[in-house]
């Protein structure tokens, strides 16, 4: 097996293990930190997929900004730990939810297995160039790009309005 196969399984395993722990963790602080580990593993996978620019962006945006925001809120609210007794016991809807999630996983895996192996056919074009990404982003996707800026503005105003103390 080649190096990239090992790396794929290693990073995939880290991503899955960290994500499982995020969900299975009762301390929100640890959840946030484990999610960062998961994002790092995904960034590694992006490098394997010949998208180094995206990998770094993933770390800067998710690791450096979004998760810091989460950490901030967890720290500031001094979030209480979830009540352990009520986690896995309890309501029927929750058991139903677990069953649905497992069903979804099985269904997805089954559907994907039926696809048949789509391997690499010959040499793939190099799609890692920042220049290329920039060109496509600002030509083919210019409307989406501008629309995103409006979205961010809305989010900015919305966040401030909601987090403000009512007078």
């Amino acid at each position, binding site marked *: 097996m080649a190096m990239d196969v090992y790396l794929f399984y290693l990073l995939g395993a880290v991503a899955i293990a960290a994500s499982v722990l995020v969900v299975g963790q009762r301390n929100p*602080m640890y959840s946030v*930190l484990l999610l*960062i580990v998961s994002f790092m593993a995904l960034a590694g996978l992006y490098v394997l997929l010949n998208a*180094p*620019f995206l990998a*770094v*962006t993933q*770390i*800067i945006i998710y*690791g*450096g*900004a979004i998760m*810091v925001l989460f*950490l*901030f809120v967890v*720290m*500031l609210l001094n979030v209480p730990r979830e009540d352990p007794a009520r986690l896995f016991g309890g309501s029927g809807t929750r058991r139903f939810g677990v069953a649905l999630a497992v069903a979804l996983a099985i269904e997805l895996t089954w559907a994907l297995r039926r696809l048949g192996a789509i391997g690499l056919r010959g040499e793939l074009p190099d799609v890692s160039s*920042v220049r290329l990404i920039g060109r496509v982003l600002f030509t083919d996707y210019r409307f989406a790009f501008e629309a995103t800026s409006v979205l961010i503005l809305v989010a900015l105003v919305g966040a401030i309005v909601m987090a403000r103390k009512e007078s």
Partner: protein
Amino acid sequence: MNASVIAHLVLILVVFTCLLLSAAAMVYMERKVAAALQQRYGPYLVGPKGLMQPFADVIKLMFKEELRPKASDALLFAIAPMLSAAAAFAAFAVVPFGAETTLFGLLREPIELGVADVNVALLVIFAVTSMGIYGIVLAGWSSNSKYSLLGALRSSAQMISYELSYGLAIAAIVMMAGSLSLRQVVDGQAGYWLHVIPRWNVFPQIVGFFIFMCAGVAETNRAPFDFPEAEQELVAGYHTEYSSMSFAMFFLAEYINMVTVSAVATDLYLGGWHGPFLPLSLGWLWFLAKAFVLLFFYVWMRWTLPRYRYDQLMAFGWKFLLPLAVVNLLVTAGVVVYLG
């Protein structure tokens, strides 16, 4: 293993050791310069001219007792300083500091001075620095002390705010160089305008340089922006509860971050290893000299300027530096397009 792999491993070790030593040298310089500015002697007892003082400090720290507050989170309390130090060291990995050299004919094939040459080096530095925040935030939270928490909150708010201006200042350079690779940015600064003025980015990008240095000082939490550890208000900020080697790691991280920011500024704005008089293979001497000047500037500023107030810092970052960086970026973009 062939010779170039061994050469690279040796290079990595040398860079690591030099970073450690540079932190020690910075501590010494800081104390000496501070003393000179305040008309005292500074350290002079340990070793000739007090040169061994940093090593005495390290030994002292090593033999101190490691204390941990009872209500702290044991795991995160231990991880936080390691994260800080690791991020500080890792950022330097993509900083090149010299042209190809055979080290006076020692090696058969020339090697490039720099641990790793990544084609998105600038973004990697950015990413690794933003990981450094976690060390500080976790230290503040896990200590379970109000001073630590306040220090951590301040520092992360400050670092996130100034990262924007930092990034925009770098973006202007990226546009001029047309590359995210630090080595290519440096190589674009070789030569002279009109045979006299070196083609360093600092001349066309003087505003960018100013923004970069301000944001760099804020990112590294140094005076006059040293709120996270404002002694008079917060005891020692996020590392109030730390002692012994874990404190030493924060200390180390702070100084190495300074070295990294200076090294990156040298590469981005001051032409890296390009300079008159010396051949390119000795260019790393120029690099060291320029980085040293910037580091001296850091120390000089700390002992000259008083600390800002926290709201002043935020206002400066968001209302002055960020708009300035945006304007700088737009003007640079216009000029780059105009000149083709």
